[in-house]
């Protein structure tokens, strides 16, 4: 999808105590290689810190990487904070070991897409390019 001349800004974030950052780093790099401006928060971020980064960077999208099983605590809080800050148009995506059963509930909370293990990097890049309005 056409992006005009505007560069997509994406925050890649690791909420919670989970230290598994392999996936987050691969995605961050792939998004950067695809021409996006990528802000990687680093590890152990609170929901408040992540939303703060999204606002400060005026990001178009935010990708949360969670492999700890704490997604049903962390994601709703981040979605809620984004809403409270008037940033509900920011495309919120989640990646990690998310059981299929939890996906409908996450989507109801405002998560645009969930990428589970085995998703290809290109799939994620394409999705974000398509989901961020030109």
């Amino acid at each position: 999808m056409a992006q005009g001349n505007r560069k997509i800004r994406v925050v890649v974030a690791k909420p919670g105590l989970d230290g598994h950052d392999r996936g987050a780093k691969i995605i961050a790099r792939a998004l950067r290689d695809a021409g996006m401006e990528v802000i990687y928060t680093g590890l152990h971020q609170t929901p408040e810190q992540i939303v703060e980064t999204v606002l400060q960077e005026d990001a178009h999208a935010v990708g949360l990487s969670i492999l700890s099983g704490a997604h049903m605590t962390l994601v709703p809080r981040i979605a809620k904070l984004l809403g409270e800050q008037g940033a509900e148009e920011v495309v919120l995506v989640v990646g990690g070991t998310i059981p299929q059963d939890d996906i409908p509930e996450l989507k109801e909370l405002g998560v645009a897409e969930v990428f589970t293990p085995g998703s290809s990097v290109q799939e994620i890049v394409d999705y974000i390019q398509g989901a961020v309005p030109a």
Partner: protein
Amino acid sequence: MATQLTGKGKGKDRWRAERYAAKPERDALFTTISGEPVEPLYTEEDLPADLDAEIGLPGEFPYTRGVYPSMYRGRLWTVRQFAGFGTAEETNERFRYLLGHGQHGLSTAFDMPSLMGHDSDHAKSEGEVGREGVAIDTTEDMETLFRGIPMGEVSTSMTINAPAAVMLAYYVVAAERQGVAPEQLAGTIQTDILKEYIAQKEWCFPVDPAMRLVTDMIEYCAKDMPRWHPVSISGYHIREAGSTAQQELAFTLKDGFTYVEHALERGLDVDDFAPRLSFFFNAHIDFFEEIAKYRAARRIWARELRDTYGARDERSLLMRCHAQTAGVSLTAQQPLNNVTRTAIEALAAVLGGTQSLHTNSFDEALALPTEEAVRVALRTQQVIAEETGVVHTADPLGGSYFVEALTDRMEEAAYAYFAQIDELGGMVEAIKQNYPQREIADASFTYQQEVDAGQRIVVGVNGYREGGDGQIATLRIDPELERKQIGRLQAVRTRRTGADVESNLATLRDAAANDRNLMYPLIECARAHASEGEIVESLQQVFGTYTETPVF
């Protein structure tokens, strides 16, 4: 059949030109999963020049063929399944289940808050309590974890690093309450903080004070816990973070040398602690490369401990290790295929001569394992041990042209990394400069690109796919457990004597500021029922905290 060896160098070249080149190769990537090129054939020409010096015999220097002369004819490896979830009560039940099903030793997985030094009621712990392991906040939780299990008889492994000293203190005091003295306790605590900064990313303090704490534990165990392994130098997480086998080997051994150097600087004799250093490696899916990795590790460790660090006690030279099959190789798609992957990886670890082994459960790409999945994983080891016959002779692949060549190449790659790291000023400096972190990030990105390009096929993921992968039952952690654990912690806070806790924490801070060994004041804090978070925060007041500058 006449063999016509035309002399070294000639046979393979001739064969390649005359025979092999006659038919085209498949269009495929002929490299190991780590990117090492693999030749179409290995012959005698690929063996090391001095077979005795490089390969030798099992139980003899340089131990390439195994650390013990009889290997699995003497004693099979220890089946050690890692377990932990919920509160200490749930995990205690799982422990007893495993002991009742033929497991020999226990292995404890802690939850994220415990690994990061946070109490269960800390703001950052919300939603994480008891999820990826057991929540341990106080000595009382540790006592519950081992209720009905004789701590003087069972060997225990605890997978915790940044706050390892705190957990060891809890363990010592819990044993004390069972009437078991520290010198009777056998087991391992991971404590490998360097690989936390490199790969696993669970830390409490900056690198230098963290290294001091590790050295305190090594010193304490050398004196008071002779049967305990104070550090398990771990490549597992380095590999899971996306490293190659060569990086796993090199960074792990270099971490090991760094602990040795710190203990020597403390004034310890190498032979007083080196026999109790142990290792933990990944068992990944590239079968022969993995076997070569274990063999190279033994040879390098023995040589360096003898020649560089002056070890004289033979036990100091033995690279004894635990292995775990590769979590990262498991797929969420067609999860039963993971039984096959795990079996192959476990076989590689056994043929590589491991001393203990954890086999992953087939549902672990989806969630923590169910009891059924854990049982299949356990049985996989028993099939290898009892049915395959691979245990009847030591190092069955020793002398294989391919395996010996891979072992040599693995060793060369490790030494090349050692030289790089030394140039940066050693491993602690290299970590501060993000060197190993960057190498791993690059390797994992390259691998992912190869998978995405279809150059590497992962069955069920980018090849042989099926629509609608069958859903399997997964373990759900009851959110109620978090409230229950917080209740347990708060009950301990109410029962204990507050002034006693405060004075012990003050003594601890004083010891931290004045370079006294922290294990003794930590044990006092454990006796006074100070919580893990209170202890870690006290130490952070002296040591500070750590924030990573991420590289990707």
